[in-house]
């Protein structure tokens, strides 16, 4: 058998001495084949590939290129071994042309001549069937054109081993087809190609072999022809882990928030939510599962009045009186003035939720500063709220005057959730509230959410860990590429079922 292009042996990477991103990963890629790396969010796919591309350096283990041990400590070293990585976030200079971006960073081996380089770029593009105008500026390009520039950039440098990090995440189905055609042509040309993805149908359609990672661990490699969507999902999500999270039964649930046929476009004009309809009930936790970037963030922000609605609407049903309020086209302030008690724990805690340089008391005031009667700020109530949160949620360090930025992730989250809960909401939306938190803090957040549920609050919980979602939520709504692919019962649903739903979903364009 031929020498593999890349062989990884027992690669381990630990961040900050505690977060294990990769643990004992072994895999091989051969020339003339396409290998898929499959895994959920946070399973360490990108970290692993970054180690081959020289962005990170492995803590343990060896990398062999063409059968010889390789030391890759910088992207330059990776070029030397003819490895090129196409990152998920393009690394391009907007005001440069395609050609200028492609030759960026190359040494002065010959005279600097953009015209000659443009001809070479065009030749590479034609060889593999790309469409590209070498003199077009990046800021005038579509996402797929930018991706083309990235791919040609590594080819121009003579890469024989290509790594693509979720290349189809930003493409329309037609563009994806074109890209796959190009990748197949490269495979015939003898290049080794690694593609990171979590879309099962793409894996089955394109690749020769699949390696699966789960929570940083290497699960195994299978031949694509022997794999099915079900078998891959099982490898990806694994056996169910029993979590001891309390799940009280909903008490007198009634409709609280009705989202109907919601469609939303982002700033670039791409549809990020398509015909989303669901109802959140009081006294229940509605989980939202989905691959990162499937529209979860946009959904919550739209409900909170932070994103304009293209089509559809959001209705809020006032408890007791049953009065219906329409939230479409209202700002967060207008929504609050209607008496809608909506609390939002955003994903980006220190960006959208809290102000890092302000202390806990001041952060409490961000939600209540309008209540003052005089021209001076009223600090007493927020101060005592801050003290109450610190005491009840065991925030450390315990001073109310500590800048929030200096707290650990878990404590920041406690402050944020505490503040949002103190507003006595009837709808509580939390996006990834336990991300980056240790076990104890996570359980405290679960308890807080459950306490709200018992108080009759409609809780919407966006999560990424399927074990947590299936243990905590009453119902789980699965979102795939901007549309709802299913709503399942949290008590009976299996992880495989949810995992399969996550990878489905009509493609938005």
């Amino acid at each position, binding site marked *: 058998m031929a020498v593999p292009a890349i062989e990884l042996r027992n690669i381990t990477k630990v961040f900050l001495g505690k977060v294990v991103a990769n643990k004992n990963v072994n895999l091989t890629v051969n020339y003339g084949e396409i290998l898929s790396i499959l895994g959920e969010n946070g399973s360490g796919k990108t970290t692993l590939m970054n180690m081959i591309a020289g*962005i990170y350096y492995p803590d343990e283990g060896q990398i062999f290129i063409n059968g010889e041990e390789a030391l890759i400590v910088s992207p330059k070293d990776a070029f030397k071994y003819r490895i090129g990585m196409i990152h998920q976030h393009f*690394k391009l*200079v*907007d005001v440069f042309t395609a050609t200028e971006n492609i030759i960026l*960073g190359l040494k002065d081996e010959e005279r600097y001549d953009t015209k000659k380089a443009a001809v070479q770029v065009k030749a590479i593009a034609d060889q593999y069937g790309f469409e590209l105008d070498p003199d077009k500026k990046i*800021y005038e390009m579509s996402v797929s054109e930018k991706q083309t520039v990235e791919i040609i950039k590594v080819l121009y440098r003579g890469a024989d081993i290509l790594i693509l990090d979720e290349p189809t995440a930003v493409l329309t189905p037609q563009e994806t087809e074109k890209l796959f055609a190009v990748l197949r042509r490269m495979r015939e040309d003898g290049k080794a190609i690694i593609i990171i993805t979590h879309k099962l149908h793409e894996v089955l359609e394109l690749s020769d072999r699949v390696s699966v990672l789960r929570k940083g661990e290497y699960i195994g490699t299978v031949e694509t022809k022997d794999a099915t969507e079900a078998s891959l999902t099982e490898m990806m999500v694994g056996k169910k882990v029993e979590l001891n999270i309390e799940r009280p039964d909903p008490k007198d649930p009634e409709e609280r928030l009705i989202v109907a046929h919601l469609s939303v476009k982002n700033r670039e004009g791409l549809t990020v939510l398509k015909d989303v309809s669901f109802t959140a009930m009081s006294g229940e936790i509605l989980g939202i599962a989905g691959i990162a970037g499937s529209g979860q963030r946009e959904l919550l922000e739209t409900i909170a009045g932070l994103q304009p609605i293209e089509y559809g609407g959001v209705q809020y049903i006032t408890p007791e009186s049953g009065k219906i309020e329409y939230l479409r086209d209202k700002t967060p302030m207008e929504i609050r003035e209607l008496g809608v008690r909506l609390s939002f724990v955003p994903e980006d805690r220190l960006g959208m939720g809290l102000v890092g340089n302000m202390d806990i008391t001041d952060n409490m005031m961000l939600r209540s500063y309008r209540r003052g009667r005089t021209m001076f700020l009223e600090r007493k109530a927020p101060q005592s709220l801050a003290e109450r949160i610190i005491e009840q949620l065991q925030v450390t360090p315990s001073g109310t005057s500590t800048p929030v930025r200096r707290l650990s992730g878990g404590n920041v989250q406690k402050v944020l959730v505490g503040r949002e809960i103190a507003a006595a909401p009837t709808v509580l939306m939390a996006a990834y509230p336990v991300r980056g938190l240790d076990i104890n803090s996570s359980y405290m957040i679960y308890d807080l959410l459950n306490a709200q549920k018992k108080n009759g609050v409609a809780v919407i919980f966006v999560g990424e860990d399927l074990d947590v979602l299936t243990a905590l939520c009453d119902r789980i709504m699965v979102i795939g590429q901007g549309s709802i692919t299913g709503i399942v019962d949290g008590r009976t649903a299996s992880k495989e079922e949810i995992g399969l739903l996550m990878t489905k979903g009509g493609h938005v364009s």
Partner: protein
Amino acid sequence: MITFLQRAVIMGIPLLFGATGETITEKSGHLNLGIPGILYVGAISGVIGAFFYENSVGAANIVPILAILIPLLCSILGSLLMGLIYSFFTVSLRANQNVTGLALTTFGVGIGNFFGGSLIRLSGADVPSINLTATSNCFKSKLPFVDSMGWFGELFLSYSFLAYLGIIIAVVTAVIMRRTRVGLHLRAVGENPATADAAGIPVEKYKYFSTCIGSVIAGLGGLYYIMDYAYGVWSNNGFGDRGWLAIALVIFTVWKTDLGILGAFLFGGLLIIHNYIPNLGVADQELIKALPYVVTIIVLVIVSARKRRENQPPQSLGLSYFREER
């Protein structure tokens, strides 16, 4: 008219030096608000060199080539040091660029006035200024046949070598930026350092070099001002707001140093035009002196409204770059 144009050019040259230096620095993504201070330091360093040389051999016996080289070298060293301080703070320590720049301006003005004051005491002069006419004459020496060429000579050939150097530097910079790999890399560093880094460009090195070279060029503006414009007379706080005007000029010329040549002369002209308009009151004079700032604001408005990406400031201007930050 010829005199006005000639004076406008002389007035504009220090601004040209300052703006070229600042453009080079900004292209690497660093907004150096220390330019006014660097002009002072560049000038006073040259003055110190010239002062001690003149005093050691006596004003009558100076060798022209040394009288030029010594202040020139001192000036370069002085502004290089300022550039190094700025880049150490903003590149290595990733300090806030605005704060560092403003501190350098205060610092540079202070240094200039401190040493200026000390030299004035050393020279024991009655007036609060240092007179380096002999050195200045060396700096101002021009081509011998100029006087015989009428208005043409006066307008195009009557300037000292530093003025031509300034124009050459501006042109060469423009060519390097547009036509060479170094220019491409430098622009990439200023636009998107993460991309440049991933492409294997030594980002910190580029930032250091461009900041220091930019400082040295700006410092030459200070030297030119003293030795040529001011006839070798240093007086404290003599620069006025020329440093800020140089930074305004960078915006005015949308980060293009070749445009900077014309822009500098225009600014120079606007600065002195009040002397050539008869019957102007003091208030009107001051209003006219503010014109360069007004046109800068107008240009800024037009450029922003047109949204041409090529005319925008470097994208990561003012931002520190740290590879491991995600």
